[in-house]
């Protein structure tokens, strides 16, 4: 009985997501203790409204990071995609077609990252750092710094329409998370993603087309960033050229807090969902308790370091406590 309890406890500790989950609960409790308003229905609705944008980007970053690559350009694609959409609407294309074109462009930008990284064999950190600057620059060039008017004919219901006190975007986020969890944990492609990031040479020797796996994940990551950008611009009914600035850092933070290894091969969808919640909860909680907003960066910084310490150090220790 006691032994069963110990082994149950060990299993829990060894779960990849546990450290982020504990941190999330702790943060929620602290904010709730300071201000009970924090867990009011109104505030929960606010959190659920802002979470999908970061959350969806972070899921793409996670898939790519597990396969061993980075994408720093997600914040710029996040801004670029809605602007493409608006431009096409202004040129007289139907809103639906404009959305599809914008998403295809986002995917194309991911394909470009993938092609340059894989064909020339350079680090994706560099490729996507370049891409980040280029597409942010392009956004400013295209808009001249002024946001184009958000098309009035745009129907924003399917992405951000209100359903009770929730917005549709949270359901999109949920659906994407479930789909990616399924792909990663239950399909052959998911197995190749882990294998590619975990040991590319071994994966290749076993016939996994590692270049293809990475290329697909580059496209997926960029597509999701563009999609999240559309959600935000629909929610705010604008296309600001500054949208998504710094988002790449938050997305990587959510991913790493959730237990994904920077070096690839390890990571979970659930962890990243928890990581994204943690970041947005800290963000929102600081507002609720009226702390100055610069504390946000400080806390996220602490959360990242703490999560990684908990993940590696505590797990190693626990493993040694075996039987």
């Amino acid at each position, binding site marked *: 009985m006691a032994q069963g309890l110990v082994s149950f406890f060990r299993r829990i500790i060894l779960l990849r997501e546990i450290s982020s989950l504990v941190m999330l609960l702790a943060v929620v409790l602290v904010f709730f203790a300071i201000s009970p308003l924090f867990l009011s229905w109104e505030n929960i609705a606010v959190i659920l409204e802002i979470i999908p944008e970061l959350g969806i980007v972070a899921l793409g970053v996670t898939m790519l990071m597990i396969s061993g690559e980075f994408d720093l350009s997600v914040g710029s694609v996040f801004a670029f995609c809605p602007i493409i959409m608006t431009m096409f609407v202004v040129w007289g294309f139907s809103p639906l077609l404009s959305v599809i074109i914008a998403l295809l462009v986002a995917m194309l930008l991911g394909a470009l990252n993938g092609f340059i990284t894989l064909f020339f064999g350079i680090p994706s950190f560099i490729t996507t750092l370049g891409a980040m600057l280029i597409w942010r620059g392009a956004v400013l060039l295209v808009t001249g710094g002024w946001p184009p008017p958000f098309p009035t004919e745009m129907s924003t219901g399917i992405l951000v329409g209100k359903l009770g006190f929730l917005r549709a975007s949270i359901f999109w986020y949920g659906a994407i998370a479930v789909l990616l969890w399924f792909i990663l944990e239950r399909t*052959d*492609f998911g197995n190749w993603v882990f294998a590619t990031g975990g040991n590319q040479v*071994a*994966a290749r*020797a*076993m*016939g996994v087309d590692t270049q293809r796996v990475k290329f697909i994940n580059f496209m997926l990551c960029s597509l999701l960033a563009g999609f999240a950008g559309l959600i935000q611009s629909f929610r705010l009914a604008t296309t600001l050229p500054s949208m998504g600035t710094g988002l790449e850092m938050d997305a990587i933070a959510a991913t790493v807090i959730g237990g994904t290894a920077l070096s690839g091969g390890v990571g979970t969808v659930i962890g990243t969902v928890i990581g994204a919640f943690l970041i947005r909860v800290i963000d929102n909680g600081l507002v609720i308790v009226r702390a100055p907003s610069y504390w946000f960066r400080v806390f996220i910084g602490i959360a990242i370091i703490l999560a990684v310490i908990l993940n590696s150090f505590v797990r190693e220790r626990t493993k040694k406590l075996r039987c």
Partner: protein
Amino acid sequence: MGDDKYLVEMLNIHKWFAGVCALRGVDFAIGYGEIVGLVGDNGAGKSTLIKILSGFYPPDEGKIFFEGEEKHFSSPREARKLGIETIYQEAAMVPKMSIMRNIFMGRELLSFRMGPVGYLDIPRMEEESMTALQKVDLKLRSPHALVDELSGGQRQGVAIARAMYFKSRLVILDEPTNNLSVKESQRVLEFIKELKKQGISSIFISHNLYHVYPVADRIVILSHGEKIGDFRKEETSVEEITRLMILP
């Protein structure tokens, strides 16, 4: 002009790397069910030779025959389709993945396909991986244990079980006993003998002649990119091979 008394025949293989000549005109053949030991000093070209055979790179010159038929491999995947499986010490496994997922990596068992992705048949993979491990007499707790938690010898065992499960024709082991204790090395040698019992050919690369000699049917010696010896075991002795290996 391949000779089909061999499973694989490599003729006049040359390979250059940025001015370094790694292989110059090597002929190398493996018979059916034969264990060939490939020995030579560091940098002799052993790994290069078998990387060409397993499709990692093409030869700059020379021909490869599989069962008498000429082949050009443009990727490891093509070589593997013919049943040529390569096991590298560090690179055979993904440490952070489970034993089961490693065994089926790239050849997953599926329940059904949904367009581009297939749904993993996890119960069948669990069962089959345990069966495969039992065939090499490897007793492991669970197919879900991480490869990270296995010893070097056990990893070789899993890799060999995998090659057997997928009915490979030729298993190439690059330094399988590197960094292993004496006892673990013995286990690996047992695994290799098990391959032969199943009629699977193998190439066993090592610079430790004392590991190769007891199990090999034939021993090939490389030095500075050239083949300097090719003996059936009964025609030679450890002393003779050692003498050849240490020649300048």
